[in-house]
């Protein structure tokens, strides 16, 4: 079993002690060491910028046309930090505790505590870079609430927090590009990790404009390539998000951890038809002010505004009075599904619930009247004032909703339904963020480490930036200190030549299938299997079927796929084919993992294991571990990393 390398000593001092005793690389040696960073989202861009600042020679890669477009940019609601600016009882410990509990006791204590500790540095760093966070009239930073917490610790920039944080990291990285410490390769996709003498020594990429396959050396390789939610075809991920880099690493020996832990986000715009290519999130921050409900009567076809108050079921407020609409995502999603399955869904598909802002509009309108000292004001003006406040808080989200659905959410409630959003699983890493391949690191959503079986809102941005700005700059030195004096390996080394040959062969094999069906059609079919049988609710029978169906689909893919065009040119169909080929393998592993985990926890809900009230029923005696899957010739071997809770006492999660 690989060693998680968790430092000894009390939880609160582990990271501090680690930092002050970890080995260092002196500045003149840093200049001779090359580091490859794959992916330029929050984790990748912040890592590339920070390592460049330290003096390492960095090569950064992304498949997009510019590093500024990585999908971190689409994160809406905010980023958590334990600043306690609101004086509402927050602390590093409480952020740590909420994250562990939110993850349903399936995350490592030491990692999560470190994350909570560095959260405050992230906010400071971002402000210094010029991230325009929302502010109060006094000029100080503003906060709001997110799910699974009872304090206000979320920092935000309207509904575009991810965009602003990514632009900050991107600009920091471009500054290093100008200084010559970072070399940027956009429109490049990583297709293999080069392992020489047991260590990651570089990557093979394909230039997505010319189609050229290239070799790149690095003393260490960092994968910051995001999550694999697109295995479901429909998700809130960008169209290009993929598992390929992580999967190639997995096939080279990196263990994949908890692949079945998928986050289904409760508030997304529902599917409108078969043409649907992706789903759009409506930020969790909307649950600060929006109330979720369905009609009490089954199959009620009246429009929302005609359904009187006493005929509405505010089911989250009813089931979870303490947290109400701000329960964690897994809980909210399951509750919405339960109501729809019971015949209370709304809209034409009946696969939706209402998210209603009418109360908030009135509440804010009245507050404005008193704040502006307007005296007696008619109801229309109160509503108008309230709408203005809502517009300031969530304007871009409301606009987006209207563009997609053609309905005005200031007048009628939004219709929402859960959708695949984030993957807690990923490459297994130790405390230093190194995978089971020496010298190969994994940061951000691509790794498995901090969120257990369910991620709390506004914690993904926190983790991406923590890993890139404040963790890897320390931990990588511990490895690279041994690399000092070791020379650059030529890219003509047989290890590189073989890896390149393998990639070229794989591309040629895809092209020569020359069948009839498009990549898109296979991807859609895979997504349907995954959503139906490995989605919000799973059971052993369905998972077994799914494994067979995926294997059959994979066979069909490799015998009837049609890719137009050529390898040595811009060919988006070929790019997609490679990604879907990897998703087909990952999908099978996800089902195997879900089948193996005979319990429910967080986002993993096995129908056989639930309480009488329909809540997730954990089995701590049997499954308080990280499932680590080792790849071996199209099969997998399971290893387990036990989770030891030294500080928090795991209990049945309650948000009532």
């Amino acid at each position, binding site marked *: 079993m690989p060693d998680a390398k968790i430092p000894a000593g009390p939880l609160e001092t582990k990271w501090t002690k680690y930092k002050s005793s970890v080995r260092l690389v002196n500045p003149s040696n840093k200049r001779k060491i090359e580091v490859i960073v794959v992916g330029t989202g929050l984790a990748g861009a912040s890592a590339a910028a920070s390592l460049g600042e330290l003096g390492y020679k960095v090569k950064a890669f992304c498949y997009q*046309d510019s590093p500024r477009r990585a999908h971190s940019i689409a994160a809406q609601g905010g980023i958590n930090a334990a600043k306690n600016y609101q004086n509402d009882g927050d602390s590093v410990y409480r952020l740590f505790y909420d994250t562990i509990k939110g993850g349903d006791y399936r995350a490592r204590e030491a990692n999560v505590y470190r994350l909570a500790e560095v959260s405050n540095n992230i906010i400071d760093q971002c402000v210094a870079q010029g991230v325009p966070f929302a502010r109060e009239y006094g000029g100080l930073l503003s906060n709001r609430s997110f799910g699974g917490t009872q304090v206000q610790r979320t920092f935000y920039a309207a509904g575009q927090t991810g965009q602003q944080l990514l632009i900050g990291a991107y*600009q920091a990285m471009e500054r290093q590009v100008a200084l010559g410490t970072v070399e940027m390769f956009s429109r490049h996709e990583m297709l293999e990790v080069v392992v020489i003498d047991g260590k990651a020594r570089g990557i093979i990429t394909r230039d997505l404009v010319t189609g050229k396959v290239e070799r790149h050396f690095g003393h260490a390789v960092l994968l910051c390539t995001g999550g694999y939610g697109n295995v479901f075809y429909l998700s809130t991920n960008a169209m290009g998000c993929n598992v390929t880099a992580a999967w190639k690493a997995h096939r080279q020996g990196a263990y994949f951890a908890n692949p079945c832990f998928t986050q289904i986000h409760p508030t997304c715009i529902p599917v409108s038809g078969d043409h649907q290519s992706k789903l759009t999130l409506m930020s969790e921050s909307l649950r600060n002010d929006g109330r979720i409900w369905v009609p009490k009567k089954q199959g009620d076809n009246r429009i929302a505004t005609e359904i009187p108050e006493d005929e509405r079921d505010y089911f989250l407020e009813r089931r979870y009075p303490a947290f109400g609409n701000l329960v964690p995502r897994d809980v909210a999603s399951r509750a919405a599904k339960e109501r729809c399955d019971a015949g209370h869904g709304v809209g034409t598909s009946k696969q939706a619930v209402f998210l209603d802002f009418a109360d908030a509009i009135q509440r804010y309108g009245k507050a404005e009247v008193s704040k502006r000292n307007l005296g007696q004001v008619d109801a229309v003006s109160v509503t108008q004032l309230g709408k203005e406040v809502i517009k300031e808080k969530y304007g871009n989200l409301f606009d987006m909703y209207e563009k*997609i659905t053609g309905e005005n959410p200031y007048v009628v409630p939004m219709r929402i339904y859960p959708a695949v959003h984030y993957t807690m699983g990923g490459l297994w890493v130790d405390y230093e963020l190194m995978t089971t391949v020496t010298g190969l690191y994994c940061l951000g959503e691509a790794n498995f480490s901090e969120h257990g079986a369910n991620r709390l809102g506004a914690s993904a941005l926190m983790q991406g930036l923590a890993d890139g700005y404040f963790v890897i700059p320390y931990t990588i030195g511990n490895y690279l200190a041994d690399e000092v004096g070791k020379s650059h390996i030529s890219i003509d080394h047989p290890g590189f030549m073989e890896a390149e040959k393998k990639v070229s062969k794989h591309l040629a094999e895809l092209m020569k299938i020359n069948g009839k069906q498009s990549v898109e059609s296979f991807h859609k079919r895979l997504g349907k299997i995954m959503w139906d049988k490995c989605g919000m609710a799973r059971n052993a029978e369905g998972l077994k079927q799914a494994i067979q169906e995926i294997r059959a689909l994979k066979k069909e893919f490799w015998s009837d796929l049609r890719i137009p065009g050529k390898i040595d040119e811009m060919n988006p169909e070929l790019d997609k084919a490679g990604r879907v080929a990897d998703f087909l393998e990952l999908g099978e592993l996800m089902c195997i993992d879900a089948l193996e985990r005979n319990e429910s926890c967080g986002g993993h809900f096995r129908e056989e294991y639930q309480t009488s009230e329909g809540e997730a029923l954990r089995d701590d005696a049997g499954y308080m571990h990280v499932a680590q899957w080792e790849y071996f010739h199209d099969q997998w071997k399971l290893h387990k990393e036990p989770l030891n809770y030294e500080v928090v006492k795991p209990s049945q999660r309650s948000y009532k």
Partner: protein
Amino acid sequence: MQHYNMDLTLKVWRQQNRNAQGGFETYQVKDISSEMSFLEMIDVLNEKLIHEGGDPIAFDHDCREGICGTCSMVIDGRPHGPWKGTTTCQLHMRAFKNGETIVIEPFRANSFPVLKDLVVDRKAFDRIIQAGGFISVNTGNAVDGNAIPIDKDDADNSFAAASCIGCGACVAACKNSSAMLFVSAKVSHLALLPQGAPEKSTRVAAMVDQMDKEGFGSCTNTYACEAECPKEISVMNIARLNREYLASSFNADK
């Protein structure tokens, strides 16, 4: 809202690669739902082309929620199409009627060469940011986030400028292919914040210099950029850039 289906004629710019001669091709699409997004309509056409053994249309797109800035296209003569304040990926088919003909082209500017079909190269924007679109602060150098209060209006205006997605529609809309709206949005975002003040004058000079080197044209204040910007970035930012630039030119020793 009533949904409807439509049949359309599409005239699409096809170009094999950067150096090839391009031209328009005409395609028919049938039974397009008014609920589809514009890009989903192109997906339908591409699936049809693949099925018929043809070459699908290459176009840039990624998040499909209007924030990454990847999608482009000039639709019926307008960057990002007919809806105000909307990216191509957020444009929906209810903007069109049954039987219409839609003309689809890439963004056109010398500084944005076509790579294939509707895909253009916008690396010039990254190089402008490299010239000075940042605050020089290394990781770990920051003071407490609340140490420097920022006037809410300044913070809000800075945010409004920072909401630029770097798509390049401003360049495509401008008869001179000027990048002034893009550059001025970045200059404003950073100049409005106290953290960005120390480098104000070197930043604006370096960014304008790089913009000129990339071959973008001059700004003649037609405001076509603001009209077509999917994020409705204000031309007031251009006025601010000009002010900053003038101030910087008096700072001869910098």
